């Protein structure tokens, strides 16, 4: 079972993030395509989802609404890690609570270590 399901469209940012999370003791399954992420979750629910909101083909918010529509996945925590600012998200940010978004990290103001700490709070590292 993957502990962290990472949905991030940029390969270089994903690779850097995966390295930091793996060093922190997490298993990471990275997907660029939200549909593929649903299939992965279907084969074994992740401990936490880390998602960017700007994705090719299908938006992150649309993905989250579909994800939450399945009763089995309603309680899986979600962390948003996005380059969209609060100002840009103002039309949808009210829905974060409903979508069980535990934390929102704005990429320009967040370090990879900050994100790893958030995930640590949510999950115990696999090696612990």
């Amino acid at each position, binding site marked *: 079972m993957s502990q962290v399901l990472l949905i991030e469209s940029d390969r270089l940012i994903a690779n850097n993030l995966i390295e*930091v999370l793996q*060093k922190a003791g997490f298993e990471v399954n*990275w997907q660029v395509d939200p549909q593929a992420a649903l299939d992965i979750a279907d084969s074994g629910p992740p401990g936490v989802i880390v998602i960017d909101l700007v994705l090719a083909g299908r938006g992150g918010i649309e993905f989250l609404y579909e994800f939450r529509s399945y009763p089995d996945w309603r309680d899986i925590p979600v962390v948003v890690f996005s380059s969209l600012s609060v100002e840009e998200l103002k039309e949808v940010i009210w829905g974060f609570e409903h979508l069980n978004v535990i934390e929102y990290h704005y990429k*320009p103001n967040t370090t990879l270590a900050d994100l790893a700490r958030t995930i640590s709070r949510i999950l115990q590292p696999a090696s612990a």
Partner: protein
Amino acid sequence: MRKKTVAADSAKMSPMQALLAALSDDLALPLLQIKSALELLGEDGFNKKTTRSSAEQMLLSAENGLQLVEAYKLTLRINRSVETLAFEPVAVGAVLQDVAHQLTPYAKKYATDLQVDVSGKLTPVLTHQPSLHIAIQILSASLIRAQAAQVQQKRYRLLLGARRGSGSVISTGVYSSIEGLSDKTLRSARSLTGQAHQPLPSLPPGAASGVLIADMLCSSMWQPLRAAAHNGMHGLATAIPVSKQLRFV
């Protein structure tokens, strides 16, 4: 979601303002790549193995951001006056080879194999070489990112192709192994400046302004980008007229 917002906002913006908005979004990507690479270096205590790989990645990201800025500046210059540009005989195939050579390290980071295919012996065209070079360069870089963001594969292919088109034109462009990527990307990019009738929510992150600038450059210099196929791959191409004099060269 963002695309809808930007597309809606674009109704209030001039094409140049819309381009700047897209450019600022796309310039954020290489900066975020550099930022995360530096953070990774710090996490590793700057050990030698990680430093080399992160430094290489940061260099490629910085170059990519600078190419976007260069392309934007050239677009502005062309919009002011095409007459100031120095036209010369240009071998399209040589430009494609140059771009492929320059972008190969960047493509490798995105698990992409770059190939060049020039069908037949093509007559040189009389044009502004830097415009053609940078249009193909930023279009290629945008499609490298776009196809890797679209679907997860072990390897991707991107083809830089040229061939004689119907009439006295050379059709040249960039072609992806991902089906349906190119025309969606072009329509989405154009939707940012309100030029498309049906904005599509399929614009891959980091690709908008590159495609848009390449389209503007091609429109000003030759013909706008259009969806095209080459060797069974689909992509975006422009058509460059062959001058009558050069046909005898």
